[in-house]
């Protein structure tokens, strides 16, 4: 009988190899890739000293995207066997979040939670794969806070199925110890008047936790003057070989969006991170079912977002109170402050 941990380690190793070393049999291609990702010509000359911190911020913003873009182009060429045919028309997008969470009950103890998301366009390999790098977890449910994610980030490749909203991801969760994953996901958006309905389904295999699935349904309604008011619900269930039965969550949110990051957000999904300036309130309930259904916790969150520096650094302030079954429903207060930075390769962002 094959030892389960050996089998999982083997699959993890295979996925890692698939992710980072496709076609890496040619040493010269690897060397040119190494050179390309470290080339300096994407960087503007650095002043000897900066006059102020705003100048540093602008320098970082101007160069960060150029550097990351040159790295993704190098990756694109590497995956496309070095035969460049298409230039990137849509710049890749990178998003870095730095969050501090303070637990008021524990004497204002602080927790630092960075997050990183990217939408990387690889025109030469897009027919085959996309590259994904994200701090989000593979089995994440809606309403997951950055501080609830396990440390590390996921890096992998994604293959979309033509004309269908289905994607196959394979990659590795980079952390100690690395964990391989395979995910098949379906997500679509239906618009009906001012309503948006977003069902999604994902099935996955993680080398650490085994098989699992997450089903979710989100709904949004825009209302009021200029449709700036939003009301929405998000429900999800998760099961895996590692969970205690079935875990579920349900949330109700109400918000006012004074300014959005992208103009056409209403035809996509409405998440707080799509808001440039706005305020919202969310009540969420979490539980699990293993024989009898049990409510694990309630969470009430107030969120305010506003631009902090130009149009690419946003401040997010989110005080919240949580009541957990585990602690006899005593109220726990936390305050989350986050800095959300966008590197989208445009003039303003």
């Amino acid at each position, binding site marked *: 009988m094959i030892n389960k941990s050996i089998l999982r380690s083997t699959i993890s190793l295979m996925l890692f190899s698939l992710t980072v070393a496709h076609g890496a049999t040619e040493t010269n291609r690897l060397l040119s890739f190494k050179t390309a*990702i*470290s*080339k*300096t010509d*994407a*960087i503007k*000359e*650095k*002043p*000897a*000293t*900066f006059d102020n*911190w705003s100048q*540093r*911020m602008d*320098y*970082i913003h101007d*160069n*960060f995207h150029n*550097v*990351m873009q040159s*790295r993704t182009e190098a990756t694109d060429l590497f995956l496309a066997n070095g035969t460049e045919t298409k230039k990137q028309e849509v710049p890749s997008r990178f998003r*870095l979040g730095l969050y501090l969470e303070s637990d008021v009950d524990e004497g204002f103890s602080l927790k630092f939670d960075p997050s990183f998301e990217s939408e990387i366009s690889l025109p030469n390999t897009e027919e085959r794969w996309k590259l994904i790098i994200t701090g989000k977890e593979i089995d994440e449910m809606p309403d997951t806070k950055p501080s609830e994610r396990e440390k590390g980030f996921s890096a992998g490749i994604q293959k979309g199925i033509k004309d269908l909203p289905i994607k196959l991801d394979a990659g590795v969760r980079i952390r100690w110890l690395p964990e391989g994953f395979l995910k098949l996901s379906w997500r679509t958006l239906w618009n009906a008047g001012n309503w948006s309905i977003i069902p999604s389904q994902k099935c996955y295999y993680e080398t650490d936790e085994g098989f699992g699935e997450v089903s979710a349904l989100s709904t949004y309604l825009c209302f009021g003057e200029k449709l700036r008011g939003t009301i929405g619900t998000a429900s999800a269930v998760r099961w895996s070989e590692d969970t205690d039965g079935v875990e579920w969550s349900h949330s109700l949110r109400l918000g006012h969006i004074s300014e959005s990051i992208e103009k056409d957000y209403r035809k996509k999904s409405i998440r707080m991170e799509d808001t440039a300036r706005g305020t919202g309130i969310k009540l969420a309930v979490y539980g699990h079912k293993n024989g009898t259904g049990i409510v694990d916790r309630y969470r009430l969150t107030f969120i305010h977002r506003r631009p902090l520096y130009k149009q690419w650094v946003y401040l997010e302030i989110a005080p919240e109170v949580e009541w957990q079954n585990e602690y006899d429903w005593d109220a726990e207060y936390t305050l989350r402050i986050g800095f959300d930075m966008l590197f989208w390769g445009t003039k303003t962002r």
Partner: protein
Amino acid sequence: MPALSETNDTALSSNAEITTVATNTVGHDASFTPEKKKHNIGHKMLFYIPNRVLDLVDIFRLRAKVGPGISGTLQLTSVASFYAGTHNTVYAGLPGPRSAQKKPRPWGREKQKGIILFGVDATDDSLFAPEHSPSEIGLGLHILIVGVDAGIDPVEIGDFLAGIIGRDPKGDDK
């Protein structure tokens, strides 16, 4: 190359053997890769033990720092290096991998101010800027008057192991 920001502080420096200052974290190759010297067997035997000790010391960085400042640094190779803050300190401890720019010293001065984000360097040029190997993995924290800086270089581990059997892939043997 941009002008260096400091001209009057050199007397305070214990890093008197500085030759150049790296200007960009991204793309700069601060690893010590000089042309390999041919040594005869006698020289190799004489310097075998000192070279192994130096190779071993190259693997680790562990320095204590004293001086005003507040800063944090995270380096997961030069491609994913981060820094924010300002500090002006003296340090003592294991200096980390040898580089072409600075000879390693177990003590010295370190000064840095600015931000580094994913290797994009927006710090002021400084004669006393810290120098990390491109393959180094490490953490640093400086709070008010004390700080610590720790790191490890996997490439140097390979160089040390290869050195035991008489190889010198980094070409840094004396």
